[in-house]
């Protein structure tokens, strides 16, 4: 029972998954890993390291933290070679982000209601399509709720994902997002569906009325099922810089997040923001998106992530 998600992800079609993550983070890896060519540890090296971490969107505070930690290690263990620094940095990073590695467990509720939120263009609808596939692969039945009633063609987009996965999609023409999701939960109950994935419209945390609206969506979900939503996920675009942190804080304050999905990790230099999140608002990262394919959504594994970010081999 325990963390079966992780097991299945490791066992099933995932032989290349570590490779793919590494490939996705290749650029960062070269930037950081490339520094450890051997040689003395000096102030210039630390400065280069600082800049490399900053360039990976780690943010000033988390970078400072990692470097202080590294300096302590160097003192304590008497490291003298810059290559040894790499292992120490990887360890430091892995330890920092380890608390974020808490796979999502689907148990105890049927239907298990998952609500997704995020800023515009983060990849919510696409993530729902991928999640549907992911859960189906585990033999769960899934139902999608088209809660993005604002954006043009968001409904159609979700419907296409539903067709691809052969999953029912509950939509309403120009309806109220909360009402659509409420209906979807009723439908899921009637059809004995295992998991409801509720899409919502993208919104920026500065749009207070929209933040109020999404709070309402959550309240209405609780009306359909007092224990729900069982999971509130924030979808984060890995391209986002330090604003990712402020998104996590705002959405967490508004909704009480239970997890994050980090999408679009397949571009160049990025991923450092995970360290910043671990330090300031450690909401578990349930999944990471590493490609455009429907199978490219995977559970987050701290060791792998740290290694992919730091290792240069």
């Amino acid at each position, binding site marked *: 029972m325990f963390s079966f998600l992780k097991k299945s992800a490791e066992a099933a079609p995932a032989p290349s998954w570590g490779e793919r993550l590494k490939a996705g983070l290749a*650029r960062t890896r070269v930037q950081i890993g490339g520094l450890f060519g051997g040689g003395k540890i000096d102030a210039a090296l630390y400065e280069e390291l600082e*800049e490399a971490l*900053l*360039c*990976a*969107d780690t*943010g*000033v505070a988390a970078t400072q933290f990692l470097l202080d930690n590294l300096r302590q290690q160097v003192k304590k263990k008497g490291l003298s070679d810059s290559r040894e620094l790499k292992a120490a940095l990887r360890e430091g990073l892995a330890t920092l982000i380890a608390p974020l590695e808490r796979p999502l467990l689907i148990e105890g509720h049927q239907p298990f209601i998952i609500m997704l939120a995020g*800023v*515009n*263009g*983060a*990849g919510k609808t*696409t993530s729902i*399509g991928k999640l549907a596939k992911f859960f189906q692969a585990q033999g769960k039945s899934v139902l999608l709720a088209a809660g993005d009633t*604002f*954006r*043009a*063609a*968001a409904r*159609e*987009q979700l*419907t*296409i*994902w539903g067709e*691809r996965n052969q999953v029912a999609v509950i939509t309403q023409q120009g309806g109220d997002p909360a009402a659509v999701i409420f209906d979807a939960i009723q439908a899921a109950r009637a059809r004995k569906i295992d998991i409801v994935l509720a899409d919502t419209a993208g919104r*920026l*945390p*500065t*749009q*207070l*009325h929209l933040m*109020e609206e999404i709070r309402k969506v959550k309240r209405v979900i609780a009306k359909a099922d007092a224990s729900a939503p069982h999971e509130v996920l924030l979808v984060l*675009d890995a*391209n*986002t*810089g*330090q*604003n*990712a942190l*402020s998104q996590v804080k705002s959405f967490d304050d508004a909704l009480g997040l239970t997890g994050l999905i980090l999408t*679009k990790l*397949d*571009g*160049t*230099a*990025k991923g450092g*923001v995970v360290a910043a999140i671990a330090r300031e608002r450690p909401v578990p990262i349930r999944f990471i998106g590493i490609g455009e394919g429907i199978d490219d959504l995977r559970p987050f594994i701290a060791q792998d992530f740290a290694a992919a970010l730091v290792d240069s081999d």
Partner: protein
Amino acid sequence: MLDNLTNRLSRVIKTLRGEARLTESNVADALREVRMALLEADVALPVVRDFIAAVKQKAMGEEVIGSLTPGQALVGVVQRELSALMGGENAALNLAVTPPAVILMAGLQGSGKTTTSGKLAKFLAEQKKKPLLASCDVYRPAAIEQLRSIAAQLQIDFFESGSAQKPRDIALAALDYAKKHYHDVLIVDTAGRLAIDAAMMQEITELHAALGPAETLFVVDAMQGQDAVNVAKAFSDALPLTGVVLTKLDGDARGGAALSVRQVTGKPIKFAGVGEKLAALEAFHPERMAARILGMGDVLSLVEEARKSVDVAEAQKLAEKIKKGKGFDLEDFKQQIGQMRKMGGLSSMIDKLPAQLAQAAQAQSADMGEKQMRRIEGIINSMTPQERARPELMKAARKRRVAAGAGVQVQEVNRLLHQFEQMQKMMKQMQKGGMAKMMRGMKGMIPGMR
């Protein structure tokens, strides 16, 4: 918008308070703070380095030595360099070619290309152009449907395409259609693509060759991190970009990507997307933006926006009243709320105020959403003209009557009156002087000016 960067730079400049004069070492400290602020604002590291070097050189030069107010000089240098970095004047679209002029949109997934395409079409239609929208995004589910329904909302012509077609075929057919139907401008939306996806980058290069666009716009999310610099470079290497559109600038992102992209591509930022509504596209003004980052606000933009959304006479009347500070009554407050709603809500307006004022305003009205605004309008509507002009008349009995009329509790009427009072105070502050007030604000920070 960019509040955080503004705040940080304000603080940095404040740390110079009490210093008799700038020395090499305290400039270095201040510059390190500026560096950190810019990094935290997601300005890419190479860009930060250049910027700091330029500021340092200038600040250590004659300008400071010759100046009586070193702090002021540093602020000036930082602002000048920031403006220079973002590229002097505002650049308009250049569509002076044989029609149809083609605008090609390019960018990462989720940066806002499709929405921006719609906004641009609206912007051009308002200038009496006849735009045609076409989508070459055959990859993302319902992307074409999205543009089609945006076009329908805006009542702008849409060129039909299907996801089974090849992007290049769609583009050429759309161009042909635009020629035959005498469209002035053809806006071609494309799929989002990663800069490292060679096949997709090849595709858009071919699209560009086939279309020969007058404008090739790179759409960038204002929230983007350090990677902006790599992405911008890749796109600018693959395509002869002519400009940049910065989207989602209405968020609280620090917006450093604007600086990075501008620096790397060397191309002007032509537009800024500032909201979800299809009218929320603004011309990008580098000068004002630099001033805004430094906490001087963006009153000019505000005036322009007001001109667009409300009738000019009304706006002028209001502007005058704000200037005078006196006679700003509940009737104006109500009108203002109505206008604010038209202009995209309170938060988008607060963004444009100078930093200190914006903070005060935010504290006052952070919780004042759309709904709240409508309630306030209701309350004011329940007052007599006399009461609106002289809120001090509002005593218990009148309050009870108004509350009953508006269907609210008396407390809410009280709250409104209190809020109004605060607002009036703010207006008075502003009246004491746009520039004069700001100068005084700066005097506090800068030694040798009091």
